[in-house]
């Protein structure tokens, strides 16, 4: 998603480049051809790839399970932040007028709106808010959902043992680009979806193109661009989420979509439900049989008529009918951006035409953190020191909106703010009625505790001044925070008393861990970069921390791989359930040699695949790696079924996906399947967003 949007931005900038400069004489093609005369070419040593057929894994056949779900009571207004269509129209008009004035004066000021009692204020020279996604590369959460399939069949043994992708919160599933149900591998690459049967060797079974055939064809300067964020496996359905952008001479607008396909017959996925939402998809989750879709909608300023709500209130479309957000579900958010809506929709994905319950705030939202009963939408705002001056001395703050999603309908609860910005979704954590946030602000790192009304009730002392947070993990009443400048302090904080978070202990190590994964009582697995006393040294590192004694955290095991990178996306991390973990990685073996004539010759070789780490009896060891060796390329995802490990390998972001099967125990490649996808890429190549 993010990647795609970034690609849009890149294309946009490219389209605005001036005319290409004239080529100097020396490098005109004809002169280059002349210069090549007599040049000899190097002959590389080619590697051979072993091919074999993998052993059969046991079969299982789908039995469809239908869950009937009817929801849809709209929540009544409970919050003081309720606003009406008319008020929103007025605010937007005021804002646009002020924007026009601002533009005509060419000053770099900004504008904000507040609602106090019953009055609205707008302030020029007030808040300068930047989109968090634009600033920090916050990503649409393309993540992994487990296969909650209930497929089994008499006479055949179901393989229960397969990859379930790592999610932020237990039982809150996230869309991903590769999933398995124990027999089939489901893959999404760009807008191409493929189903591979792994029984008796890999075989392409079903495929689906999610972009319309006319995608990208500019008709009168108008074209569409579909971006699929990921998919969920739910019963025998595959649910895709994403955004379809429509561009009109580079000015694009998006509609988020949720498309449900029945895969009861994997050879023929059939569309069963299709929903469109005004605005771009921020993220989605699937929990407790409910789909949660969060979108952000900027009404088209050219088309807004301030007294006609249908021109700016976000709607949901099923078929051609627009269902506008009910007026009693509309609230005023952190209104530093009074021209967009952040909407939350909750519905049953397979409930036929079950109604879609919604709630929205007039204001901006960015990334999300979602538990089973509360959804938090947050974004960083960069202020010029005026608006927040009473609280903060200017700088960065993170605005948080909370929605109750425990019932059938989402209800906007409240909004709050903490100084500083969050690193990622792990920086927020809900526990025992409190929300904890680890932020970096002005060279200081703090952990804040907020109550149910999102008011700050406690804050830790500033950690590691001058550094910034690289990794966070909360576990119950404990927070683990990694900061980094030249070495990596791992801080352990005790949050038992919410009003007084206290620093218990710290551990200084070279390098840093950017992902922390609890691996049993008192143990944390840290993944990140290796280093020495001067900073990072280009190596990838996995560390095992013993945090049984919070005052004295220790590193009790480490694995370092030189010139390598571990995949940074937590959704790519796979717990094999037997004390071993798979982590996609890439290692660069590039060399530069100088030949006889003094010309430097580059050869590129990347080894990419997945590492298998074992945590056992308080030790960390590298079991081995499943490697694909090419001159370029990465492994966006790794999966496994039974004893077979599958590497989804991409040579470049526009090449086809190659699925490589490995025998899990011997680390030898047993099968390869290249999927012909439409000039697509897997989002995770070079990270999402």
């Amino acid at each position, binding site marked *: 998603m993010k990647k795609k949007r970034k690609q849009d931005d890149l294309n946009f900038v*490219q389209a605005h480049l001036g005319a290409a400069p004239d*080529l100097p004489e020396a490098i005109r093609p004809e002169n280059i051809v002349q210069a090549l005369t007599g040049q000899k070419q190097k002959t590389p040593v080619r590697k051979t790839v072993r091919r074999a057929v993998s052993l059969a894994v046991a079969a299982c056949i789908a039995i469809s399970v239908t869950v009937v779900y009817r929801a849809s009571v709209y929540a009544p207004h409970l919050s003081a932040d309720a606003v009406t269509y008319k008020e929103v129209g007025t605010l937007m008009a005021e804002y646009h007028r002020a924007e026009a004035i601002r533009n005509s004066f060419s000053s770099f000021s900004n504008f904000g709106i507040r609602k106090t009692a019953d009055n609205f204020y707008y302030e020029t020279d007030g808040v300068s808010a930047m*989109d968090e996604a634009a600033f920090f590369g916050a990503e649409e959460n393309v993540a992994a959902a487990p296969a909650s399939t209930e497929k089994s069949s008499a006479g055949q043994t179901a393989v229960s043992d397969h990859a379930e992708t790592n999610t932020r919160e237990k039982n809150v599933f996230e869309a991903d680009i590769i999933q398995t149900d124990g027999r089939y591998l489901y893959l999404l690459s760009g807008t191409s979806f493929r189903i591979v049967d792994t029984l008796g060797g890999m075989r392409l079974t079903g495929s689906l193109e999610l972009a319309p055939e006319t995608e990208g064809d500019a008709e009168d300067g108008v074209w569409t661009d579909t971006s699929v964020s990921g998919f969920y496996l739910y019963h025998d359905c595959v649910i895709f989420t994403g955004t379809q952008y429509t561009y009109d001479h580079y000015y694009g607008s998006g509609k988020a979509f949720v498309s449900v396909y029945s895969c009861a017959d994997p050879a023929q996925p059939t569309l069963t439900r299709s929903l469109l939402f005004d605005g771009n998809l921020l993220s989605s989750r699937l929990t407790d049989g409910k789909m949660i879709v969060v979108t952000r909608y900027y009404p088209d300023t050219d088309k807004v008529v301030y007294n006609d709500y249908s021109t700016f209130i976000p709607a949901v479309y099923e078929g051609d009918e627009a269902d506008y957000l009910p007026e009693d579900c509309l609230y005023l958010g952190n209104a530093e951006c009074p021209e967009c809506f952040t909407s939350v929709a909750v519905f049953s994905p397979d409930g036929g035409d079950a109604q879609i319950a919604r709630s929205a705030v007039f204001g901006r939202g960015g990334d999300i953190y979602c538990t089973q009963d509360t959804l938090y939408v947050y974004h960083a705002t960069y202020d010029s020191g005026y608006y927040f001056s009473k609280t903060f001395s200017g700088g960065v703050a993170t605005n948080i909106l909370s929605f109750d999603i425990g019932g059938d309908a989402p209800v906007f609860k409240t909004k709050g703010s903490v100084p500083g910005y969050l690193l990622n979704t792990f920086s927020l954590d809900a526990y025992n009625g409190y929300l904890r946030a680890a932020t970096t602000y002005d060279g200081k790192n703090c952990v804040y505790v907020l109550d149910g009304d999102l008011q700050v009730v406690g804050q830790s002392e500033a950690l590691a001044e001058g550094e910034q947070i690289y990794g966070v993990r909360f576990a119950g009443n404990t927070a683990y925070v990694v900061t980094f400048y030249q070495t990596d302090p791992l801080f352990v904080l005790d949050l038992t008393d919410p009003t007084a978070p206290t620093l218990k202990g710290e551990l200084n190590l070279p390098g840093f861990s950017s992902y922390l994964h609890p691996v049993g009582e008192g143990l944390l697995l840290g993944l990140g970069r290796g280093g020495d006393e001067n900073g990072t040294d280009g190596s990838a590192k996995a560390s095992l921390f013993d945090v049984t004694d919070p005052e004295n955290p220790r590193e009790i095991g480490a694995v370092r791989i030189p010139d390598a990178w571990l995949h940074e996306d937590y959704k790519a991390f796979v717990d094999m359930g037997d004390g071993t973990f798979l982590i996609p990685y890439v290692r660069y073996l590039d060399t530069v040699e100088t030949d006889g004539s003094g010309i430097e010759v580059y050869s590129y070789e990347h080894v990419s695949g997945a590492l298998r780490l074992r945590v056992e009896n308080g030790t960390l060891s590298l079991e081995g790696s499943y490697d694909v060796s090419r001159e*370029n390329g990465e492994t966006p995802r790794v999966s496994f079924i039974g004893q077979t490990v599958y590497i989804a390998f991409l040579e470049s972001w526009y090449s086809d996906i190659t699925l490589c099967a490995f025998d899990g125990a011997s680390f030898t490649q047993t099968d390869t399947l290249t999927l012909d996808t439409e000039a697509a890429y897997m989002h995770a190549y070079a990270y999402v967003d």
Partner: protein
Amino acid sequence: MEKTEQKDLKKNIRMAQRGSGEAFGALYAAYAPELYRFALWYMKDEDDAADAVQEACLLAFRNLKSLKNAAAFKSWFFKILSNTCKTALSKRNRLSVVSLDDEKTAYDAAYFDDTSDADALLSLLSDLDRQIVTMAVLGGFTSKEIAEHLGLKSGTVRSRLSRALAFLKRNLTEEEVLAI
């Protein structure tokens, strides 16, 4: 990429791999203006840029047999060019180390009324940001590749790229803001 274009590309690469300078010329011609513009942004000097492109052509031709995926030709070529530029720059000691501290915040300081083309806006970016944008926009490099090349953390590249793109986009669309 269109299927026919892809076929031509593959054919030319095969022929060039067998030593045809003409075929390589055809391959090069398709990307020459982009390559030169890339080098120009990188080197900030016309002669140096032309030298870098020439050298990259020689290297690419000599190593063409090691290119396995025709579709990767363009990024492969740009990678060679960026390495050539990097080497040349460090040799000439103009920008041996890319500083992380050159946080020249054109974003905050500047507000442009009559700038409509990206080239002019690009020149307002810090050296580091311009390199990142150039590599991404012209070279099609991924954030990770840029990070490797510049010796930065890929997260840094991503955030800088996002920020720079947002800046460019904002200023390129500014004129379209509705006045009421």
